[in-house]
């Protein structure tokens, strides 16, 4: 007799000692998302100041085609596309982790101040330490994100850091950091302020392979670690008592997940500046596509990649920063979400 789970599920038991349930719907959703991503990727490589045909893009990617197309596709547009995909994945995962931790669709790293903290880190490095080197700014933003997470965690801590308190404290910290950032910018000469402000707009346009390599390495190191927190996080959604009765060390899991979530969101800010709302929106879209509980990390990651790639194509077309596009689109979603949460309660 087999169990009715209310949705089609395939059981995968390749050999003794390993077994998994695979949601068929998730497989279909992921396949569709990958297809959409492929199409968007081709569009992203083809369009721009010089439009190329699909044939020219493929030729350039496979090593053929003329020199101009090769430069355009492989050297200029491909790193930007890879960045959009990678940042989309990282942001969506950070969002999924924090929304699961806080059990709240509002609990994403951009809302609870981690983006602002990363940006503060970058601003401090540029203005106070006086370095405009990429590596220094990246490091500053990583440290800023971690410190902000620590601050929010400590301020929200009372016999364990609970979800909603984390969000409220996070929003307050985000607001304080935003005004601190403005204050720092007001104090310096316009030239330096411009550099820092353009970082703060969140842009993928100026990024090349030199920045892609450290980012990709960080992403590849962080992704396997998710295996360790994915199912404990889902278990933690039952509440601390139940999770602990199931043999979970709740605070340890939470701390590990916070560190991992901050790392994912900080490597993006470090590379491209704060790109808001992908972390907020992607896991929620994934959740609705799947109609399944839990953080659903893979689907969220793919959704994030699709969203950010699409936003970047739009940004490319109308010549604004990617962050501006995500803020505009995400802002509308945020308003809708607030209204819905308000009506609910």
């Amino acid at each position, binding site marked *: *007799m*087999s*169990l*009715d*789970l*209310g*949705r089609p599920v395939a*059981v995968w*038991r390749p050999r003794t*000692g*390993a*077994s*998994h*349930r695979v949601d068929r719907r998730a497989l279909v959703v992921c396949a569709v998302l990958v297809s959409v991503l492929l199409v968007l990727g081709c569009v992203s490589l083809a369009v721009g100041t010089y439009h190329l045909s699909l044939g020219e893009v493929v030729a350039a990617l496979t090593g053929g085609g003329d020199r101009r197309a090769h430069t355009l596709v492989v050297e200029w547009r491909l790193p930007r596309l890879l960045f959009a995909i990678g940042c989309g994945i990282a942001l969506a995962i950070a969002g999924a982790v924090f929304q699961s931790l806080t*059990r709240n669709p509002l609990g994403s790293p951009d809302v609870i101040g981690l983006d602002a903290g990363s940006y503060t880190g970058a601003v401090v490095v540029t203005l106070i330490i006086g370095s405009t080197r990429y590596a220094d700014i990246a490091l500053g933003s990583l440290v800023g994100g971690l410190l902000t997470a620590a601050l929010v965690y400590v301020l929200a801590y009372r016999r364990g850091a609970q979800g909603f308190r984390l969000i409220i404290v996070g929003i307050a910290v985000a607001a304080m950091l935003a005004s601190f950032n403005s204050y720092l910018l007001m104090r310096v000469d316009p030239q330096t302020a411009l550099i820092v402000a353009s970082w703060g707009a969140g842009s993928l346009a100026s990024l090349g392979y030199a920045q892609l390599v450290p980012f990709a390495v960080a992403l590849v190191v962080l992704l396997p670690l998710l*295996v*360790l927190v994915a*199912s404990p996080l*889902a*278990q933690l*959604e*039952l*509440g601390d*008592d*139940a999770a*602990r*009765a*199931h*043999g*979970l*060390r709740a605070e340890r899991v939470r701390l590990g997940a916070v560190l991992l979530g901050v790392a994912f969101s900080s490597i993006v800010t470090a590379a491209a500046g704060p790109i808001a709302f992908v972390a907020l929106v992607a896991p929620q879209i994934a*959740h609705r596509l799947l*109609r*399944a*509980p*839990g953080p659903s990390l893979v689907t969220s990651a793919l959704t994030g990649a699709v969203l950010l790639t699409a936003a970047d194509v739009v940004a490319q077309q109308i010549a604004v920063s990617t962050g501006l596009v995500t803020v505009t689109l995400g802002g509308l979603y945020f308003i809708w979400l607030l209204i819905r949460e308000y009506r609910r309660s």
Partner: protein
Amino acid sequence: MTDHTLEAQGLTLAYDKRVISEDLSTHVPVGSFTAIIGPNACGKSTLLRAFARLLSPRAGRVVLDGRDIASRGAKELARELGLLPQTSLAPDGIRVADLVARGRFPHQRVFDRWSPDDEAAVLRAMTATDVLDLSGRLVDELSGGQRQRVWVAMALAQETPVLLLDEPTTFLDIAHQIEVLELFRSINLEDGRTLVAVLHDLNQAARYASHIIAMRSGSIVAAGAPADVITPEIVEDVFSVPCRVIDDPESRTPLVIPLVRR
């Protein structure tokens, strides 16, 4: 199932600075259905939390099968000692079978998440609690009684020889209370699992439990078989309620009748 002994030895239990119990010792008889009773804030849930290792004692220890539970691995302990918390949260959009399957967590490893054993245990738990028909339903859509049965199924799927239940009948109407208590009795008698439940209703405790621990302001006043604990003297001492205790004509267990105040 093998014999499992659960004992509290000289426990001092406290939340931050507020001491609830001092030097508390008691034991849960092997294979019993033990009920912990007492007025509100007498420390009965606190004692249960200490049994479940949700609260570390400031002094003393909780001993399961001769070993201090504080020295056990988290997952290892969770395979022997289960808990149905007072309140649990159902993740958004979760379905019944999925929720019950979450009870298998302590038996699963990172790359072994849905073995035939897991599936069989979930089926057994859902059969025992009669929720198989609800299998594919959303937990949010269930009635209070159905939902509680699903939570019990999750705790059963954990397949622990000892199961702790924190006020399992609160928030249920009388029909569902009886249904859940009958279920516990059959789990206790048929599976031979040791149950420890915090209960509010004295008559239900007397009827369903085989061993009763009565508490007042953090201390144990009496412990033993229902007939020995549910007496007019002890009930008045514990709850400050003058009463008569008669023979329940239905179950032949003690029945508490509070006196009319004149």
